[in-house]
C-alpha cells in the first residue's frame, strides 16, 4: 500500500525544561537509498517513544531529531551540523558507510558520542567516540567464508557484488581474503554498478559457466531479487548465500518468495524469530508504519537502547556538556553487556566493534529457518 | 469594407517601441505597397498582422473579423499567407516537402496537385530541384521557394516581405509579373519592398513608413511622382 507514513514529524517526546537528552539521527530519506534511512528513522523513533514512556533515561526524557543526508558524505556533514545547531548530545548514525566516514571525523572533533546502526565499513568507527551496532564488513565477509567452509556448503563459489558500493565491496574483499585461507575457490567475481544494476544475465552466465556451486551475494535485497529472478529464468540453481543486506527480501512487496527458497544468509535479526522481544517489535513497527521492519530498523532500535544502557551505566545527565557525555559514554560502552533484537550479550571493545555472532538462516517455505 | 484593416497598431520589442500607432487598410483585390527605410518597421508590421508578434495596442480586422488576439495558425486558416523576411524555408526538408507544408491547410488532393503544378510552372527551378534539401538552395532559389510555399495555400490575402531581395534583375521583373498574376487571379496583396520603384509601379496604393509611423499614403502612381518620395526612396 501507499501513503502509510502517518507522520513526518521529526520531534517526539516532551520538551519541557532543559532536562532532556537530545539524540540526533541521520540517514538518507530521499534519493535511492531512502529505504534504509527511513527504516533507521522509524526504528529509532519507536525505541525512543518506548524509552520515554518508560520514564526516559536517568529520569530525563529524550528528544530526538532525524536529518536527511541523501547517503552522501557532504550532505551527511550538513545534516550533522544541523543537528549540532539543534544542540544534539548523542548521535545514532549515520545509516550508510560512505556518509558515516565523513561524519565520524566531525563528531570526533566535537568528541560527540556516536553509534552507527548500520555503517559497516572499518572507517565508519575509526575514532574512539564512535561505536557500531551492526557487523563490520570484515566481520561479515570473514565469517561468511568461515561458515561456508566449516559447514562444507560449497567448494567453488562465484561472487556478484556492487563495485561502486562501499558496503558490497568491503564484504566482497574480506570474503575473498578469507576464502583463500579456508581453501575455498572463487571461480568468478563479477561486479555491477548502480548505473547498470538491472541486468545480471552476464554475471550469472559466467558463474554458471565457471561451474560455481554457490553464488555469494554481498548486496542489498533489491538487486538480489533481480538476480534470483534472472537465475530462475536461466534455469540456473546454485545455492545462494547472502549477507545482512539481504534481510528484507521476504517482505519485498509483491515478491515471489519461492524465488528465495533455499537462500542462506547471515543475519543478526529476523522478523520470524520467535522471541517475545522481536515479536513485540515487529508488531509495534507494523502498527506504527504499516510495513514489516528490516534489519536496519532493528539495528536502529537497538542503538537507541544501547544508548540508554550506556547512559545509565555512565550516569550522565542532560545538563552535561557534549564532551562530558562523550567521555562518559565511551567508557560506559566498553563496560555494558547488551541484549536486544540483533544479538544477546553483546559487548564492545574500545575500537567500537560489537562482539556479535551472526546467525545463519535459510529460507524455507517462505520463512527463515535457523541453522 | 476593406479586407484587412489595421488601426492604431503599437508594437514593442521589450522597451523599444517599433510601431507607434499605425493605421492602414487593404481593400479586397488591391495591391498595397508598404515602403520605408531600413528599420522603419515594415517587417514588424507584417509580423504583427499575422500574429507572430504581440500587439501592445490597436486592432487588426480581416474580412470584418477582429483578429487582433487570434493566433497565427488560425489567421492563416482564414486565408492569409505570409512570405517572411529571411525566407524561413524548412532547411532539412526537401523542396517538395516544403511546398507540401505550404498546403497544410488545404486538404484536397486535386487542389494540391493543381497548385503544385501552378507553382512549378511559375518557378521551374523548384521543379528541377524538388528533392534537394531547401537549406542548400542558393539565396534566390530559397526566395522562390518561400513564395511558392505561400502560394500553395491559395491565400485570399498574401503578405510579402521583400520578395525581390537577392533575385537577379531578370527574375525581379519576373517576380513582379507573378505578383500581378496572383493579384489578377483575385488575391489581395500587401507588399513590403525596398525596390520602391517596382513596387509602386504595380501597386494600387501605398503607405510610407518612417521610424514606426506612417508618414505618407496615397495612390501608388502619384507617389511614384512625388518629389519627396523620389528623393528618399527612389534614389533619383
Amino acid at each position, binding site marked *: 500500500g501507499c501513503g502509510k507514513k502517518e507522520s513526518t514529524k*521529526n520531534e517526539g517526546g516532551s520538551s519541557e525544561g532543559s532536562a532532556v537528552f537530545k539524540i540526533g539521527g541521520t540517514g538518507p530519506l*530521499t534519493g535511492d537509498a531512502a529505504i534504509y534511512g527511513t527504516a533507521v528513522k522509524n526504528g529509532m523513533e519507536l525505541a525512543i517513544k518506548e524509552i520515554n514512556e518508560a520514564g526516559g533515561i536517568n529520569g530525563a526524557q529524550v528528544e530526538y531529531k532525524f536529518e536527511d543526508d541523501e547517503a552522501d*558524505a557532504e550532505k551527511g*556533514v550538513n545534516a550533522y*551540523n544541523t543537528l549540532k545547531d539543534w544542540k544534539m548530545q548523542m548521535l545514532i548514525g549515520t545509516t550508510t558507510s560512505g556518509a558515516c*566516514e565523513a561524519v565520524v571525523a566531525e563528531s570526533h572533533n566535537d568528541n560527540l558520542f556516536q553509534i552507527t546502526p548500520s555503517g559497516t565499513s572499518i*572507517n565508519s568507527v575509526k575514532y574512539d567516540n564512535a561505536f557500531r551496532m551492526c557487523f563490520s564488513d570484515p566481520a561479515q565477509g570473514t565469517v561468511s567464508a568461515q561458515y561456508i567452509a566449516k559447514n562444507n556448503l560449497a567448494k567453488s563459489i562465484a561472487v556478484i557484488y556492487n563495485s561502486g558500493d562501499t558496503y558490497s565491496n*568491503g564484504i566482497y*574483499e574480506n570474503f575473498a581474503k578469507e576464502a583463500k585461507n579456508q581453501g575455498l575457490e572463487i571461480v568468478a567475481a563479477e561486479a555491477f554498478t548502480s548505473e547498470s544494476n538491472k541486468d545480471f544475465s552476464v554475471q550469472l552466465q559466467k558463474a554458471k559457466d565457471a561451474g560455481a556451486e554457490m553464488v555469494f551475494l554481498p548486496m542489498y535485497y533489491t538487486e538480489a531479487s533481480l538476480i534470483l529472478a534472472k537465475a530462475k529464468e536461466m534455469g540456473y540453481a546454485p545455492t545462494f548465500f547472502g549477507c545482512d543486506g539481504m534481510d528484507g527480501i521476504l517482505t519485498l512487496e509483491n515478491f515471489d518468495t519461492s524465488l528465495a527458497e533455499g537462500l542462506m544468509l547471515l543475519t543478526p535479526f529476523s522478523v520470524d524469530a520467535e522471541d517475545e522481544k522481536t515479536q513485540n517489535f515487529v508488531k509495534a513497527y507494523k502498527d506504527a508504519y504499516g510495513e514489516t521492519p528490516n534489519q536496519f530498523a532493528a539495528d536502529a532500535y537497538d542503538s537507541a537502547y544501547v544508548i540508554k544502557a550506556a547512559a545509565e551505566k555512565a550516569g550522565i545527565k542532560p545538563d552535561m556538556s557534549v564532551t562530558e557525555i562523550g567521555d562518559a559514554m565511551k567508557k560506559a560502552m566498553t563496560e555494558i553487556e547488551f541484549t536486544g533484537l540483533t544479538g544477546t550479550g553483546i559487548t564492545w571493545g574500545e575500537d567500537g566493534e560489537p562482539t556479535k555472532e551472526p546467525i545463519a538462516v535459510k529460507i524455507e517455505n517462505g520463512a527463515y529457518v535457523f541453522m | 469594407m476593406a479586407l484587412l484593416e489595421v488601426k492604431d497598431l503599437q508594437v514593442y520589442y521589450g522597451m523599444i517601441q517599433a510601431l507607434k500607432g499605425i493605421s492602414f487598410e487593404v481593400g479586397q483585390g488591391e495591391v498595397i505597397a508598404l515602403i520605408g527605410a531600413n528599420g522603419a518597421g515594415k517587417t514588424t508590421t507584417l509580423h504583427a498582422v499575422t500574429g507572430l508578434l504581440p500587439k501592445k495596442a490597436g486592432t487588426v480586422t480581416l474580412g470584418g473579423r477582429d483578429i487582433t488576439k487570434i493566433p497565427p495558425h488560425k489567421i492563416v486558416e482564414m486565408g492569409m499567407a505570409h512570405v517572411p523576411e529571411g525566407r524561413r524555408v524548412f532547411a532539412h526538408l526537401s523542396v517538395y516537402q516544403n511546398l507540401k507544408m505550404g498546403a497544410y491547410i488545404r486538404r484536397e488532393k486535386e487542389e494540391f496537385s493543381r497548385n503544385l503544378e501552378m507553382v512549378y510552372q511559375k518557378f521551374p527551378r523548384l521543379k528541377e530541384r524538388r528533392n534537394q534539401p531547401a537549406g542548400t538552395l542558393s539565396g534566390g532559389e530559397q526566395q522562390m521557394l518561400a513564395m511558392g510555399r505561400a502560394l500553395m495555400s491559395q491565400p485570399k490575402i498574401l503578405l510579402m516581405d521583400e520578395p525581390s531581395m537577392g533575385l537577379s534583375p531578370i527574375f525581379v521583373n519576373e517576380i513582379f509579373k507573378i505578383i500581378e498574376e496572383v493579384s489578377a487571379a483575385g488575391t489581395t496583396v500587401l507588399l513590403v519592398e525596398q525596390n520602391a520603384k517596382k513596387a509602386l509601379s504595380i501597386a494600387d496604393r501605398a503607405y510610407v513608413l518612417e521610424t514606426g509611423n506612417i508618414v505618407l499614403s496615397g495612390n501608388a502612381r502619384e507617389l511614384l511622382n512625388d518629389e519627396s518620395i523620389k528623393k528618399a526612396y527612389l534614389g533619383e
Partner: protein
Amino acid sequence: MRHLQKTTKSNFITYGIVILTAVIIQVLSSAGAISSLIGGLLVPLCAYMILAISLNLVVGILGDLSLGHAGFMCVGAFASAFFSKMTVGTMPDGLRFFFALLIGAAAAGLFGILIGIPVLRLRGDYLAIVTLAFGEIIKNVINVFFIGRDRNGLHFSMKDSVALNLDSTGEVIVNGPQGINGTPKDSTFLIGMLLLLIALIIILNLINSRAGRAIMSIRDDRIAAESIGINITKFKLMAFSISAALAGVAGVLYAHNLSSLVASPKSFGYNMSIMILVFVVLGGIGNIRGSLIAAFILTLLPEMLRGLSNYRMLIYAIVLILMMIFNWSKGGGRLKEMLAERLRGLRKPRTKEVK
C-alpha cells in the same frame, strides 16, 4: 574607452561583492554568530561557486553544452587527495595544500585537453552526450583504482585491495569505491574565498581580452570566426582546459574539506554535473555574477528547507521550475517589467536603444 570602463566597473562590483561577503562572514564567524550548519557549508559553497563560474566559461562563453563537469572536479579531487595522503607529515601543511591545488588543477586541466578531441569534432547535443559519457568514465575508472603503499613502495591494482599484496606496514591509499579516507582537512573558508576570487579574476580577465573575444565569436558564429582567422581548435581547447582546471581547483577544496572522498554517483556523477549546469542557467547563461548568486542560493536552499523534512526536495523542485518560468516566460517577463518600471524612477535605463 567608455566600453572598457563599463565592463571594468562591472567586474569590480563582482569582486567587491565577493570580498564583502567574505569579510562579513569572517567577522560573523569570529563573533560566533554563525551556526554550525552554515559554518560547515562555507567551503562547499566556495567550491560550488568556482564550479559554476568555470562551467559558465564553457556553456555561456564558449557556447558548448557540457554535462560532464563533475568529472573534472573528480579528477582534481582525487589527484590532490592522493598527493596529500602521500605527503602528509613530510612538509608544512600550507605548502602541501598549495602543491595539492597545483596538482589538482593540472590534472583536471590535462583531462580538459583530452576531451578536446571530441569537442573539436562534435556539436550541440552530440557534444553534450560525449561530455556526459566522459564524466561517467572518469567516475567509473576511479572506482576500480586501488593504490596502496608499504615499505616496498607503491602497489597498484585494478581488481581489489587484496590484489595489492601489501605487507604488514601497508596502507591502502586509494581503495576503489571506498575512495580515499582521511584526507587532511586543509580547506578553510578564507582559502576558498581566495581561490574563488582568483578564479573570478581569471575568467573575467579572460572574457575581456583578446582570447575571450575569440571564444565568444566562436560561440556566436563558428564559420564567421574562421573567416576572420580565429583558430577554433586553439580557443576551444583553451576554454575547456581552463574551465576544467578551475573545476579541478574546486575539487581540491571539496576533497580537503571532507575526510572521506568517494567517487559516488551523488558527488561526481552526471547528477552533480547537471546541478552545476542548473547554477549556470539560473544565474543567466554567460552571466558570471549570476552564476555566483545562483550557486549560492541553490546550495543553501535545500539546507534552509530542512525543516520541511521529506517535502524539502519536492519544494526544491517546484522552486526550480517556478524560477525558470519566472525568468523566461511571457508572464514572468511581464512581472519583471512591472518590477523594472517601479525601479525606473530610481535609475535611468542602462542600455541605449536603437533609434
